[in-house]
């Protein structure tokens, strides 16, 4: 093996790994706050990527209409669950969040979409659309069953994945899409060439990790989200609305997913169902991170990316087998290290 190949594979692995890291972080975040194992994270990726790619060709993606439709359902649920105490303030909030927000995003998309729209506007539109979908997904599918077991939430999560993936086919078709690169800058260091795209991937991944760390460690909202994760009843007793925490977590996760998608769609062609496998790899990283630790998840994600790059070079047939069995030894080590006595205290 020569150094060029080695370095190339490493670079490839780290680029993918950074994406997995972002997804892993989002999964950890959602799980910690809502106990939902977010299988539809992959759909946030494809929705973000393909909405962006379609906008780049001047078309309005179907996701914009989906956001409006989901907003309507959420509105109905909001009114129904508050039917006994309909304050005007509550109704106004529901109208603003569930109707005005997605409708504004949708209309804005129709108004701005065109072949000449700047990349930055397209990115912003794609992010807004997916963020709305993420927010309403929690409101519709998970908020009513927020108190049930992790298993039930997981099954509901799979249901959402199926529905969203099916809708993805309707919106984007079976053909794969690619989007324009965020920047065409490139620089070379020795035999390695860094594209602006891969630099953007690194930069954003690091920025997000730092931002999340600051958010959860220092802001009151971040602490409230953590508190919800640690003890739901305790959080409610100090007046933190757990439903709001859940919505914020989903909003953040869908944003992160969409950004990941927008970052990779210029590098690889994405199909409506690609997100699932990408999400699963972020998932592996999150699992290795134990669904709690952000830094560990980021490191694990890089590892997954590198292992994937090397095994696709040396044993491409068994690439997935290797990546997915990689976590078994890690899991065994983790659970051996976990304390045997959980709640036995004086």
């Amino acid at each position, binding site marked *: 093996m020569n150094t060029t190949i080695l370095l190339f594979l490493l670079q490839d692995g780290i680029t993918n790994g950074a994406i997995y890291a972002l997804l892993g972080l989002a999964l950890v975040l959602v799980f910690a706050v809502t106990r939902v194992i977010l299988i539809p994270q992959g759909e946030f990726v494809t929705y973000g990527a393909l909405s962006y790619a379609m906008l780049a060709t001047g078309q309005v993606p179907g996701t914009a209409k989906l956001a409006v439709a989901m907003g309507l359902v959420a509105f109905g649920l909001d009114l129904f669950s508050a039917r006994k105490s309909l304050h005007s303030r509550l109704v106004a909030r529901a109208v603003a969040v569930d109707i005005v927000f997605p409708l504004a995003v949708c209309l804005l998309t129709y108004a701005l979409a065109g072949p000449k729209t700047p990349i930055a506007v397209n990115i912003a539109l794609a992010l807004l659309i997916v963020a709305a979908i993420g927010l309403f997904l929690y409101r519709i599918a998970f908020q009513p069953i927020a108190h049930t077991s992790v298993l039930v939430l997981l099954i509901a999560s799979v249901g959402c994945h199926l529905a969203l993936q099916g809708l993805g086919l309707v919106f984007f078709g079976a053909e794969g899409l690619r989007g324009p690169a965020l920047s065409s800058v490139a620089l070379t260091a020795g035999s390695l060439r860094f594209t602006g795209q891969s630099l953007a991937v690194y930069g954003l991944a690091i920025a997000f990790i730092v931002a999340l760390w600051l958010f959860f460690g220092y802001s009151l909202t971040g602490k409230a989200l953590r508190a919800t994760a640690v003890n739901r009843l305790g*959080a409610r*007793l100090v007046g933190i609305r757990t439903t709001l925490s859940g919505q914020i977590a989903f909003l953040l996760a869908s944003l992160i997913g969409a950004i990941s998608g927008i970052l990779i769609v210029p590098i690889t062609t994405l199909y409506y169902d690609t997100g699932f496998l990408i999400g699963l790899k972020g998932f592996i990283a999150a699992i290795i991170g134990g669904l709690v630790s952000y830094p560990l998840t980021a490191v694990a994600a890089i590892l997954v990316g590198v292992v994937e790059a090397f095994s696709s070079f040396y044993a491409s047939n068994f690439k997935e087998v290797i990546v997915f069995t990689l976590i078994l030894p890690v899991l065994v080590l983790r659970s051996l290290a976990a304390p045997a006595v959980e709640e036995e205290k004086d």
Partner: protein
Amino acid sequence: MSALLSVAEVHIAYGKVEAVRGVSLEVGTNEIVTIIGANGAGKTTLLNAVMGILPLQGRTVFASEDMATLDIEDRVAAGLSLVPEHRELFATMNVEDNLQLGAFRIPKATAANSFERVYSLFPRLKERRKQLAGTLSGGEQQMLAMGRALMGAPKLLMLDEPSLGLAPIIVADIFRTIGELRAAGVSVLLVEQNAQAALQIADRAYVMELGEFVLSGAARDIASNQRVAASYLGFQHEGGSAV
């Protein structure tokens, strides 16, 4: 003067089983009221329902506001606070963060005062402010739970079994602090199995049996009631009181 909290003809059911049957109670401003009774009498159920954790039938009015349509978070904002039996602390966060979150619903400027007040009531918490809540001793956890509830500057503090599982010396400390709350302008509704200690600090008391109040009145009168003495206080053994 109208009562701070007034609960009228409340029924609470778990499925088909009625745990609380037609209970009425009042807590006035600057008053300490206790509900005593055996485990399973429905005391915790009643507190949880007043807080909005469980649904109830009947009328509950707090600070002249009907609470029927308010959920837990709204009741917290209205000045009602509960320290539940299991304390429900944020175990993996430190003492200071726990307290800060206790002030989640009040303005930042007021929160600073709350910190001072809580730290002066429980100096021990100040010493431990960087320690994780889950690693505190049982007594300290109870103090933190009370401190967290007080951070939100409640008008009425409801305490569910604050002495449960604590050493006698700590129990005495906790009850002393509860007594001090009245001076700080906080009313207290105290559910307690340690009837003797509760009756010593309370103004008024209700005795609950099988989901109903069987007796109520001034705490002093209840403490000297024959029946209460027999079934809740126990005849004192030499030097072996519960506190």
